């Protein structure tokens, strides 16, 4: 997407060699909630190394902060001490900070021009919630993330969920994974992305996953309807500041699933609806539902080629454009569901599979946890 560069986010733009490729996406979930470390997701995304070009990589991990599971975990990129000061002043105004620290990283030759990377475990001050009787706590977190990313120079909140975290930056994904030491975290759900930016520059905030609350989106393709979606979202308080098309997917899912309480299947119909002539052939009840969704959410329709993995605390969804212009393979093995741009990436970590299939255009692959989130902590299953 051709978006005006935002002069307030100057850090860490990088240009690498050009190669012929496409993005890579991957995800794995244990639906019994058993946790495993980041080693396998690194191997999955590394298997598809040639799909990305070193201009972006990242991971989302769920269940990694059980000791702070009731606090929002803000992961923040800061380009200077002044940006940090401004950000922290903003944060203290609205939140109690229980813990703050640098995000642990390993020195890696391949990772350069890194911003300051910090995380804050916080809770919203009661006073703040009281001032906004018509907004939920999550609405306020969304509002604050938008304010930081749009208005505080040199600061980006790139992860804002509970008991989950996004780790991303400029580099090949496997290097970004080692840089953030993700093999030291245990999660029950992991997604990953290797970026091959086509329309916007590779910068740290532009790497995937794109997160908001506990949603995290990784995306291969491009959203041709970005301009329409962006204007539509602005009506609902979502502001796009990341200079790339993918963030609209994250905000649309947040709006449809959390605010408008659509089911996952309905939300996917709204975002990638069947063509009108297919709608006409549906059973009357279904036809009315789909017609209603198409009309109500015309501004949310995602056009262009995409394959997407949406992760959230309760599960993982694989999702393609209507005419299947990007690849997506899904597979099962025991309690685990895998999604990847290539079957080889799945076989890399699970040579034997109970079943493997190609996702269909416009039809989501849905996997939900089969246990309550507050189930007694299980022993981490080591990779």
């Amino acid at each position, binding site marked *: 997407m051709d978006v005006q560069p935002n002069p307030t986010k100057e850090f860490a733009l990088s240009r690498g060699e050009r190669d012929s490729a496409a993005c890579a996406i991957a995800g794995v979930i244990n639906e019994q909630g058993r946790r495993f470390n980041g080693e396998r997701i690194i191997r999955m995304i590394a298997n598809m190394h040639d799909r990305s070009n070193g201009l972006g990589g990242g991971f989302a991990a769920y269940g990694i902060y059980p000791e702070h599971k009731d606090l929002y975990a803000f992961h923040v990129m800061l380009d200077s001490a002044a940006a940090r000061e401004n950000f922290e002043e903003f944060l203290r105004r609205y939140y109690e900070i229980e813990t703050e620290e640098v995000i642990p990283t390993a020195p890696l030759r391949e990772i350069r021009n890194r911003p300051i990377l910090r995380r804050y475990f916080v809770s919203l001050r009661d006073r703040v919630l009281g001032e906004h009787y018509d907004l939920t706590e999550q609405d306020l977190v969304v509002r604050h993330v938008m304010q930081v990313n749009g208005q505080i120079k040199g600061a980006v909140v790139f992860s804002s969920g509970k008991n989950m975290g996004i780790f991303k930056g400029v580099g090949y994904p496997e290097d970004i994974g080692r840089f953030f030491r993700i093999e030291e975290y245990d999660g029950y759900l992991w997604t990953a992305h290797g970026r091959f930016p086509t329309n916007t520059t590779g910068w740290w905030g532009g790497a995937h996953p794109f997160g908001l609350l506990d949603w995290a989106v990784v995306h291969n393709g491009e959203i041709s309807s970005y301009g329409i979606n962006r204007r539509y979202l602005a009506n609902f308080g979502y502001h796009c500041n990341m200079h790339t098309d993918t963030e609209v997917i994250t905000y649309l899912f947040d709006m449809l699933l959390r605010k408008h309480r659509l089911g996952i299947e309905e939300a996917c119909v709204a975002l990638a609806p069947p063509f009108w002539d297919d709608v006409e052939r549906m059973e009357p009840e279904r036809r009315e539902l789909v017609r209603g969704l198409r009309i109500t959410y015309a501004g949310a329709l995602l056009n262009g080629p995409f394959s997407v993995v949406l992760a959230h605390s309760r599960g993982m969804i694989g999702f393609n454009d209507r005419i299947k212009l990007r690849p997506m393979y899904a597979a099962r093995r025991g309690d685990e569901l895998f999604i990847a741009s290539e079957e080889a990436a799945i076989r*890399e970590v699970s040579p034997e599979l109970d079943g493997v299939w190609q996702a269909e255009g416009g039809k989501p692959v849905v996997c939900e946890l089969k246990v309550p989130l507050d189930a007694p902590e299980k022993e981490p299953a080591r990779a």
Partner: protein
Amino acid sequence: MRIDATDLHYRDLNAKVRAALEAGERELVIENARGQRYIGTGVTCPQAKIEITGIPGNDLAAFTSGPRIVVRGNAQDAVGNTMNAGTLVIHGDAGDLLGHSMRGGTIYVKGSAGYRVGIHMKAYGQRFPVVVVGGAVKDYAGEYMAGGLLVVLGQGVPRDQSVAGRYVGTGMHNGEMWVRKPISAHQLGKEVGLVPIGDAEWEAFHGHLAPYGAEFGIDAGQFKRDDFVLLRPTSHRPYGTLYVY
């Protein structure tokens, strides 16, 4: 000769294949493929046989002219991209874009394949590409097809279910497609129509099923004329007047 593909980048794996063929090797077995792209790409030796275990990567046999390549499991996307000659046998499923822009040779898939199978296949002179899919295919089969033969046998798919998706043959302007019944009018692209199957058509088509059956140990006698529809383009220049006004 055996080549273990474990942890080999595709450039190194394909360099080994080329070096072996140049050294006179004619039978190669590639073991533990894990997504390496372009296996067999540009190989021109018609006597060469390449067998692959594991999962070969995208663009398997791209621009290949002559060898016989056998995949023991599944293959990914764009298999046989712009292939010129030779035989490619896949014992599992294939992904999207199978036979993409294929110009000659034969691809047999035992299982199913994805979207846009046979997109822009073309034939010229002696070159006549053939793609036979044992199971089902998804939308846009034969899209912009300009020649050759695309077959969807529907094995393992219940008799009352269609073995193809939507937009079958959209933009097709030459060649033919044989698809197991049933198929509904709304599944067809604007540029194709059903053609009655005469004795001559059936015999020519059935001639392609015997070698397919032999490859996988399937009795080609089980396929009956009444099981299939024959699709051909209704025009050789569907867009001839698109910019005429």
